[in-house]
């Protein structure tokens, strides 16, 4: 790879020397009255300068314009249309009528208990999942950064769950959480802890003698969050590891010389420098959390119950099960605004810092 780059670079250099010689020739000739080539060149330059937009913009347009238009059509066109649909009363089979646009769907949403429950679940999932994921990812990254042997093997295994589909991981976790013979309950039984957990966590109205992780309102959302942390903490680890590797060695050595303990060094010197990694990781993790639909749908179908219903699952159920398209669109707009709240400031600050 490097060899190719070098070869190309030298090729480029020789090209440039040839070109600059040509250029200087052109100039001397031009002062002597001009040659065909130089005049032609100058005419093209003036043509380019007189364009209302930069020449480079036009020249590069065939490359970026078609993909950008495709993305704009599918992303922004669809969102705008979705916003309009949320103002209609479109439901059932047939076609939407755009004659009467109002905010009735949003009014319905405000008085819908299921919507507020789903919003609350979404926010809890978003915040708790992101924070715990960052914490675990950071811890694992620091451990891996200790110059250990088989570092690549550990890293690969820790990141493995992330390469799996939500449907696959949901299937595996449905077995782990299984009340009768799942791993968790069997392990608790082995250590005689099942009774204790049942007394601690069993909801008042429920009559059960096994822990039903996915059904009890005390545990359902926590169970989802735990499984998602399992799947995505490896991602946080990768981001933090890159951040740790970017910190100059001197910072470690300086802290050492000052006699700081390892824990103190990380708390005072190293972790504060990982702010950028933490911000970018948390944005991506929050987006994953907003998209956790696939996971919950595979686990419980489109009616996961109030305990683990999030806006994403509610939107799908309302629109594609009940065919209340306009109401579904309105919920989708709320979800979109939530995402915008997360990524808007992030993209803006990246843009300001010239990082984009």
């Amino acid at each position, binding site marked *: 790879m490097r060899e190719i780059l070098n070869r*190309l670079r030298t090729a480029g250099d020789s090209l440039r020397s040839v*070109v600059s010689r040509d250029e200087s020739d052109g100039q001397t000739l031009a002062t002597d009255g001009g040659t065909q080539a130089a005049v032609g060149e100058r005419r093209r330059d003036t043509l380019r300068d007189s364009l209302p937009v930069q020449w480079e913009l036009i*020249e590069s347009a065939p490359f970026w314009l078609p993909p950008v238009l495709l993305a704009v059509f599918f992303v922004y066109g669809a*969102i705008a249309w979705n916003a309009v649909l949320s103002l209609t009363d479109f439901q059932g089979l047939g076609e939407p009528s755009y004659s009467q646009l109002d905010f009735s769907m949003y009014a319905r949403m405000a008085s819908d208990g299921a919507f507020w429950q789903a919003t609350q679940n979404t926010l809890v999932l978003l915040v708790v999942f992101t924070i715990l994921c960052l914490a675990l990812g950071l811890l694992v990254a620091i*451990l891996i950064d200790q110059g250990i042997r088989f570092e690549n093997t550990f890293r690969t295994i820790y990141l493995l769950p992330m390469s799996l589909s939500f449907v696959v991981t949901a*299937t595996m976790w449905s077995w782990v959480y299984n009340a009768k013979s799942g791993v968790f309950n069997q392990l608790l039984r082995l250590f005689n802890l099942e009774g204790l957990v049942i007394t601690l966590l069993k909801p008042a109205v429920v009559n059960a003698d096994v822990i039903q992780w996915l059904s009890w309102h005390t545990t359902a959302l926590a169970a989802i969050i735990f499984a998602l942390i399992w799947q995505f903490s490896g991602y946080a680890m990768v981001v933090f590891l890159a951040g740790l590797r970017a910190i100059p060695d001197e910072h470690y050595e300086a802290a050492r010389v000052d006699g700081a303990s390892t824990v103190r060094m990380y708390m005072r010197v190293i972790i504060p420098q990982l702010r950028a990694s933490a911000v970018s990781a948390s944005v991506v993790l929050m987006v994953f959390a907003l998209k956790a639909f696939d996971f919950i749908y595979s686990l419980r179908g489109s009616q996961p119950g109030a305990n683990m219903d999030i*806006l994403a699952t509610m939107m799908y159920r309302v629109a594609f099960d009940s065919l209340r398209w306009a109401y*579904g669109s309105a919920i989708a707009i709320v979800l*979109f605004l939530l*995402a915008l709240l997360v990524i808007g400031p992030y993209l803006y600050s990246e843009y300001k810092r010239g990082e984009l």
Partner: protein
Amino acid sequence: MSTSTRNPIESLRDMENSRIGLYVVLLFGIVFYLFPMETAVMTMFKTQTEFVETVPFAPPSPDGFTLGALMTAWNTLRPGLVNSMLMAIPATIFSAMAGSLAAYGLTTISWRGQVAVFSIVLAGIFIPYQAVLVPLAQFWYQILPDLMNGFVNTAFGFITGGNWTYPTRSGHVQLLQLSITHAAYGTPMCTLLFRSYYKGISDEMIEAARLDGATAFSIYKNIILPLSLPMFAVTLIYQFTQVYNDLLFALVLVNEPASQVATQRLAALTGGVVQSFNTTMAGAIVAALPTLLVYIFFGEQFAKGVAE
């Protein structure tokens, strides 16, 4: 990557205990990240009575061993796997190509305002797809068929007699629509991956070629494209995993049973009334196999794609 000498813990290497403690914690990490997969693999080889009566992570006893669950799962998922490949591979290649071209136009050739255009594309990565689902369904099931019917029957009315209808219910058409949808929504991510790579390519080379009178196209073809090959590997692997793993778009766009993709079939298997966990676990492993293989052989590229 890291030089092991720089590490402060290095000086503690003599303290064997902390070192052993570190590896114990790291091994515990392996148990934590692998146990759901391990129980799945063990369970898929067990008979119905065996998996109810034994601990999930123990291997099956000789009496309780069966390949029946795996066969059932394989037969259920096989058509889905084929459909997933048919759908995901073209979509991935298209996204990667489009992303490379867009990133070239938005990075290597520099002009004022390109960052703004890039930001617009970039935001497309982060939107929750729920926000486009209803319009997508409308587009593929109403708008496009109407447009196509009108167009074909007007332009080729002498052949069709005005009776041609867009094959909305054809499984192949649905799969194609799903593929196009994935290609479109994957393009922003691929653009991001290629842009960060192209930023690192030296300007000198490009400038030299430009001064030599090379056109934008020949620069792309002769310089950028050959240099992009490692990045194509990263992007194709990352994007394939994303598209293959998706369930949401497939649920909305494909309803013909014969055209369902692997994730849909697995979700149906999991959501069944009878919970035969040996079959569902076998299904999970079979459905995970393509991405697992990609990850095992190209883990480095996947990690790079993730880290962006």
